[in-house]
């Protein structure tokens, strides 16, 4: 019997400025789910994702479109978006290394390994903005180049963070 979520791999980074989740996509699945069960950092900023090409090299070209709604319990909601960007934003946010305010997130990635398709993604995250309150992200993104994608990278603007990612194939 086919499974439902099939575990592929777990990747953890400690005090890293980016975290590559390598060789997690294959011809075995069309749809993937990854869970971000921890993300914390000392400097306030968003975290996003980039994809890794067939050689495992991170794609930094301006080939990404993204949009997300930032729903803040303590303020008016905000919409953010970009086209032809170098990453997909809206995965997470943190401004503290306190474990109790770490992020929870579930994202899906569609058709990454299919070389004739763009790679699409959507996700939702729940984070605590320390001193303010809970915030939600509802996000979409696309990599607008038809090529084989083998993994992804948790990307930030450069300051170090701690993160744990679990990847599953969806059957």
């Amino acid at each position, binding site marked *: 019997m086919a499974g439902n979520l099939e*575990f592929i791999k777990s990747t953890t980074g400690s005090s890293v400025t980016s975290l590559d989740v390598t060789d997690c996509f294959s011809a075995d699945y069309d749809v993937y789910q990854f869970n971000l069960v921890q993300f914390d950092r000392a400097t306030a900023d968003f975290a996003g994702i980039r994809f890794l090409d067939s050689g495992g090299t991170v794609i930094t070209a301006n080939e990404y479109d993204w949009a997300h709604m930032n729903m803040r319990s303590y303020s008016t909601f905000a919409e953010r978006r970009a086209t032809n960007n170098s990453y997909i934003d809206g995965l997470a946010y943190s401004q503290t290394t306190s474990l109790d305010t770490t992020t929870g997130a579930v994202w899906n990635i569609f058709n990454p390994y299919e070389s004739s398709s763009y790679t699409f993604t959507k996700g939702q995250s*729940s984070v605590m903005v320390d001193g303010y309150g809970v915030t939600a992200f509802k996000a979409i993104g696309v990599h607008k180049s038809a090529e084989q994608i083998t993994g992804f990278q948790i990307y930030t603007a450069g300051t170090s963070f701690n993160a744990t990612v679990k990847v599953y194939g969806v059957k």
Partner: protein
Amino acid sequence: MPIGQAKFGLLGGVADLGKLELIETQTITSSTALIDFEDLGTGYNVHFITVNNFHSATDSQDLNLRVLVGGSVQTGASDYGRAFNVNYSNGTNSQDKDPTLDRLRLIPEIGAFGREHANGYFYMYNALDSSKYTFFNQHSTFLSRDPFYATTFGAGSYQQSNTLSGIRFYMSSGNINETEISLYGIAES
């Protein structure tokens, strides 16, 4: 080689299947005030919850959630926070938000007449980790009191570092007439 493929080989052709593990399903067929899940399993960082064919006994009431710690329901005035968007089919939308609450509102102002039902799914993060807050993401589709077709998406939090022993679903007023709620753990999460 991806680890998943390596495991496939190591297990002699038995793939590492079935990581969405059903913990419990509760089926409600008559008027009920509280639906408690008192077993959240072990070892899960992420839980997945489905709410199917939900029918409130009273019009314009919210489906709420509180958590249980050591078997006791948590009702502190600032234990919870919420932020979600509500989109109605008449073209309006609203921002439902508050950083300090004594409960989580999952689905707001559900209709109760005829086939005015609600459906949804929720993720719950870190419920079994005593060092972290518990977070939620919510998605629902329902017929409102108006009645307009509507959807919600957003997040919530239980803002205490505790290990949860359970979760409770209940209405802001009145009972639950009908629903099926399933709680899953995502293994290896």
